[in-house]
């Protein structure tokens, strides 16, 4: 079970990012616990300066803009 957090204040792109992550996990058959972090203070605590961000098992893998689907697959299967 991977712990995945999508960091973003709830803007459109953050929602899309969360959907992309969930879809990729379903497709790959990877079990994930997806959490959306919308609190600004909590987002900032991860040290990113642009949203949406993705954190997998405590490690920031992405910040700023929509991720590419192929990369999500890469991060989830790592």
């Amino acid at each position, binding site marked *: 079970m991977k712990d995945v957090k999508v960091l973003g204040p709830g803007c459109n792109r953050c929602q899309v990012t969360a959907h992309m992550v969930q879809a990729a996990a379903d497709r790959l058959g990877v079990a994930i616990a997806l959490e959306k972090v919308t609190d600004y*203070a909590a987002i900032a605590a991860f040290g*990113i300066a642009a949203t949406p961000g993705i954190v997998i098992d405590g490690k920031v893998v992405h910040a700023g*803009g929509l*991720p590419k689907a192929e990369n999500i697959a890469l991060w989830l299967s790592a």
Partner: protein
Amino acid sequence: MSRCCPAPIVAPVKPASALPWLVWTAGALLAWGVIYAALEPVSGWVVSTLPIEPGSDLEEAIAFFLYDTPKVLMLLTLVVFGMGVVRSYFSAERTRALLTGRHEGVGNVAAASLGIVTPFCSCSAVPLFIGFVSAGVPLGVTFSFLIAAPMVNEVALGLLFALVGWQVALTYLGFGLGVAILSGWVIGRLHLEGWLEPWVLKVRSQAVDLPVASVTLVERIRAGIDAIKDIVGKVWMWIIAGIALGAFIHGYVPVELIAAIMGRDAWWSVPAAVVIGIPMYSNAAGIIPVIQALLAKGAALGTVIAFMMSVIALSAPEMIILRKVLSMKLIAVFVGVVGLGILAVGTLFNILFVA
């Protein structure tokens, strides 16, 4: 708001061969050049086939619209592509690392300059603000970045360069940087850290370094293409609206009226332009065709640039977003300082350059 989060640069899953991409890009650029060169004759021919009296106001307005719409969209596409490639060398995280611990002065200059090339979207203005401040970037330096980033952007510069000339584009660049550097420096000098929302100062973060695995040329070209899809896809309606308004001004608004309201002799025109521009919100793409038409009708350059800057740099939606981290007092200072900076720059320009 104007432009949001261009797609990030990440390592490709498998290295793609660069050659087809380079050939394709070169071909696309060549096609661009050919079409661009054909725009004027083709649009002229289309207008001449319309059943309108030659030389009439209506014909002038229609000619302006038919020629400028494809021209502006094509130029914008080219500039956005170029800037998308340039921006693939920068990220908000990397810029923050460059600015952390900088002193005021040098820091303000660096922040304003980096504000031009760093990918920035107003929807992540708040995370960026906190990310910068909590990592030790001084408040005034952070503001220099936040002022320059939306104001001096590729869309504004590219369109000004293409439609009004490189002198105006350079002037805008210089003045934009000047306003951002000075305003940030002034806000830093005022030591207003206490006017931030209290929780902001409590955030302690460890700045992360994202793995920027070697980005290939192909990835940079793809970043440019993504930027086109993203930005041009969003602003084309604004541009057409702007050109329609510009065409109306071009064809129907008399020169005397514009010259009287926005000409160099009207001393009150710069303050009026700033006051009207601050609550207005448009992005650069929509406002520049209007700017071009106003200039052609005798508006003073300093007045027009001041108007454009206050429209782009200060807007109600951005203030609402920033209210989450700044107190009302600090927002008032921010608007006041930037507004005064724009006012000073516009007035000075009108005095110095007698057109």
